[in-house]
């Protein structure tokens, strides 16, 4: 049990008659990079909100970092990091202030914030910019900083919601270097993306269609199963039959 970062069993979320998440089951290993893919409207966001302790499921079971999604939402929030494409850094705070703010919110002690933030600024090569407003940073840097902030309190799991949207191909790869590093440090990474080449960087991926997990395997096995050499095609074959995306 302790080796699993996330366990979902028949997890369901219903809005009226509509099953946004329809009895999904999967387990994520600790330190795994787990890709969570699906067509628009497949239920990814709803599932992710439940796993982040922001929304209650209708039925089924799930634990995140060992905590129950019904009863221990606050413990979940303390033990995860979250970053989305619309990242939540404050444009009118400096880089250091943003780091301090998030460190404080997550209860990292003041001396610890000090050491870690100066280390972080060094690792990112942002020593000169540390006192600049985040709003002045190029998008690629913001994204790297947002990710670093999301794992600043050393969470067990980090949720990344389309983290690389719109960045150039080089920065996108640097970002994935950081993801690999975090995974190597033992942080479980749960990531959604629309870039199919990025799906290949994951240890395992799920594809959600109409609220259900239609496939769950390593990228290599999925390609074998669908008899193709591109993840793009795997996704297309699975999601093409989606009925509801457009409602």
């Amino acid at each position, binding site marked *: 049990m302790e080796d699993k970062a996330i366990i979902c069993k028949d997890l369901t979320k219903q809005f009226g008659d509509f099953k946004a998440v329809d009895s999904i089951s999967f387990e994520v290993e600790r330190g795994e990079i787990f890709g969570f893919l699906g067509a*628009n409207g497949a239920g990814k966001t709803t599932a992710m909100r439940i796993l982040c302790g922001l929304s209650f499921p209708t039925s089924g079971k799930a634990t995140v970092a060992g905590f129950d999604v019904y009863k221990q939402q606050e413990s979940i929030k303390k033990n995860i990091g979250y970053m989305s494409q619309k990242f939540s850094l404050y444009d009118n705070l400096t880089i250091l202030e943003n780091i301090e703010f998030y460190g404080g919110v997550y209860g990292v002690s003041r001396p610890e914030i000090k050491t870690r933030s100066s280390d972080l600024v060094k690792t990112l090569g942002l020593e000169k910019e540390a006192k600049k407003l985040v709003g002045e940073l190029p998008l690629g840097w913001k994204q790297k900083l947002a990710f670093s902030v999301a794992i600043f309190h050393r969470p067990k799991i980090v949720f990344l919601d389309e983290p690389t949207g719109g960045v150039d*191909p080089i920065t996108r790869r640097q970002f994935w270097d950081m993801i690999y590093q975090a995974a*190597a440090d033992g942080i479980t990474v749960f990531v959604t993306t*629309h870039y199919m080449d990025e799906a*290949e960087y994951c240890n395992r991926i799920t594809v959600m269609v109409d609220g259900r997990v239609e496939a769950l395997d390593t990228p290599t096995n999925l390609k074998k199963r669908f008899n193709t050499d591109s993840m793009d095609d795997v996704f*297309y074959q699975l999601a093409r039959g989606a009925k509801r995306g*457009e409602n």
Partner: protein
Amino acid sequence: MNSVSLKNIIKTYGDVKAVNDVSFEVQKGELFGLIGPDGAGKTSIFRILTTVLLADSGAATVEGFDVVKNYREIRNRVGYMPGRFSLYQDLTVKENLSFFATVFGTTIEKNYELIKDIYDQIKPFNNRRAGKLSGGMKQKLALCCALIHKPDVLFLDEPTTGVDVVSRKEFWDMLDKLKKQGITIVVSTPYMDEATLCDRIALIQNGNIMSIDNPDNIVQSFPKPLFAAKADNIYKLLEYLRTDGEIESCYAFGEYLHLTLKSDEIEAESVTDIAGKYNASGLETKLITPTIEDSFIRLMNEYNHGEAVKN
């Protein structure tokens, strides 16, 4: 004849050169792609061409009309779908469409043929408010609204960003049909794989056009043999190869690493020999054809290197 033409267009915001001396032409009936990440200057170029933003200097025409002097003529002849959803969220699908038709002095019925294929897909939701539509449907409605006055040129700013693979394929099929009706289309995208669906593309980065040609030529002008390699632990292999003296460049690309050598060797065995030094299990290497993304990465590195030398 050219449908769109830019000459030495410069646009700055404070110290930032958003568009840096950009010149290019789009022929009538062409499907032309601006390919580049956020902040490359794509949106500024669109806004200048649709006459909603003034350039600092340079000249541009659309359908032969000057973007400054003849902006009224241009506005009647272009359709513009901005990157951000810009329809009225609290009007229904039908109301939005009627509104845009009326503004351009036409009716939905008059140019129905043009939008029929796309409109049919959202017609069942005619009475739904635009704000309540899914991403894919918003995109279709926005395209209908941009087409309702039968424009000569269609400007689409990142129409497929954040859209899943299936909807993206559908969208590009729609563009192909519109192209067959003779409409000139200028489209931007951050997805490099979509570049191959255009007749010609401009690769842009930091306000500069790095390359402009048809996708095949861009790929063929890749100056080095390109190899792919993979191993059981691909991340370790990447770390090793990146620092190897014989490797010129190496980066992750889907399930493989892509790499070029300092030598011009074209045999994949030479890569196997180099990677063999690191005892990578499950090693596999092959010579491959570059993609647009490979070309983009290479041009970007050359460009960044040039900038570093200049400073």
